[in-house]
């Protein structure tokens, strides 16, 4: 037949390449990532202005404090990628090209994680620069000799990637961006704050099991010890928060994979 290219099939690498193209070819995704970097830096700068030497806040807390708002950007990025296939109708083109479907979700997981990682690293760097004046002007300095400081800085990136993947899973599972974003914000942000207003064994236990526990990745050793001392629920220790959010990501992505593999695509 005319112009016939060599007959080559679908491979995991090719699906990954296709999903990378899809991610970067939507300007809204790029603007969202840039906006998330700006929000991380501006929020860290703003919160840093209120830190005083006697506040028991560390330098790493100042640098990573922008996560409180920036995580919404990561969540939205994942949610719009996960649900966008279905809300825009792209799913019909995508899943007739890759009818086994699950390689697409796998590739989206990789590209969203990579995009979140790059965005978070940029956000961390921007936050470092934005808070340099605050830290130099009497605020707490970033001292890598303080136990857990390096882990807290890396935790900003890891927690951001986890929130983005949670958004992806919710988007692919619920197939509507609004549902995924609202659900993600409740799970990763609001739920923790609401429960914190009424501390107790039950509410503290629920808080420890929400994906918002992933924010513990941003704390140095002293802050983690203070959190564990204050809770009447399970003490998650150094890696417990990361484990909780990782389990959430795996479970939600597995549920999305089940729905994608077993149910119709409209």
């Amino acid at each position, binding site marked *: 037949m005319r112009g016939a290219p060599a007959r*080559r*099939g679908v491979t995991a690498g090719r699906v990954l390449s296709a999903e990378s*193209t899809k991610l970067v070819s939507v300007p809204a995704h790029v603007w969202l990532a840039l906006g998330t970097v700006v929000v991380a830096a501006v929020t860290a700068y703003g919160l840093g202005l209120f830190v005083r030497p006697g506040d028991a806040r560390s330098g790493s807390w100042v640098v990573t404090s922008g996560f409180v708002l920036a995580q919404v950007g990561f969540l939205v990025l994942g949610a719009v990628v996960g649900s966008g296939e279905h809300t825009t109708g792209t799913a019909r083109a995508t899943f*007739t090209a890759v009818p086994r479907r699950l390689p697409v979700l796998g590739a989206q997981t990789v590209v969203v994680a990579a995009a979140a990682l790059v965005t978070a690293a940029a956000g961390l760097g921007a936050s470092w620069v934005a808070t340099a004046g605050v830290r130099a002007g009497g605020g707490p300095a970033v001292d890598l000799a303080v136990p857990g400081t390096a882990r807290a800085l890396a935790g900003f990136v890891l927690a951001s990637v986890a929130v983005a993947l949670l958004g992806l899973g919710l988007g692919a599972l619920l197939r509507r961006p609004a549902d995924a974003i609202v659900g993600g914000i409740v799970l990763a942000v609001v739920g923790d704050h609401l429960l914190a207003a009424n501390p107790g064994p039950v509410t503290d236990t629920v808080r420890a099991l929400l994906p918002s526990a992933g924010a513990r990745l941003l704390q140095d050793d002293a802050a983690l010890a203070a959190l564990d001392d204050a809770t009447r629920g399970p003490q998650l220790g150094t890696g417990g928060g990361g484990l909780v959010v990782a389990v959430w990501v795996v479970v939600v992505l597995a549920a999305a994979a089940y729905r994608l593999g077993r149910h119709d695509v409209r």
Partner: protein
Amino acid sequence: MIEVEALSKRYGSTTAVDGLTFTARPGTVTGFLGPNGAGKSTTMRVVVGLERATSGRATVDGRRFADLPAPLHAVGVMLDARSVHPGRTAYAHLLAMARTHGIGKARVREVLAQTGLESAARRRAGTFSLGMGQRLGIAGALLGDPATLILDEPVNGLDPDGVLWVRRLVRELAAEGRTVLLSSHLMHELALCADRVVIIGRGRLLADAPVQEIVDRTGSGSLEEAYLQLTTDAVEYRTDAASGGAR
């Protein structure tokens, strides 16, 4: 070749496709006709694996769609002009599809030229008219140079030049030995380009024969009259004017 055998698809208590059997053969354009809600699009979606059959089976070249190792090379599919992210350019949309199969950029540019979208390749699909969206959908279907094409209402929204282009295109594709399954509500168009028509109503097969045979069998003067006659009892929404035409 597309083979649909005793295919049924139910959504809860609603039966969209009910024991449908037909075959679309290589080298022919098979028109797929039916009133609104007859189950045409559902059947097409089941054939390409987007929806699962409740019972029965649908195969392309003897294999389930999901079992095809290189689907874009086997079947070109255009189900809806809105199967593209509105923020993505036509070129990026096709490039992403192409990359799933290792198809090069040259082929992407080739199908953009073939469908008359070269000048709009860098425009976001969200700014496209319905007709341009149809052309982009057809470009996606042609991307893998497939042996089988499934086109759902491909002339919707096209200008007269576009309709003529699609008519010639499907005839050329069939002349090259490809299987073409084409749904349309435009009887005149189907009469001109289809070799054979499959007519369904309420999910069931009403007729499956060459165009002229259906016209002769029903004693009608045209495919349109034959269609209205065959679907009289299978249509859910019909105006008085159409009912009169069927008599």
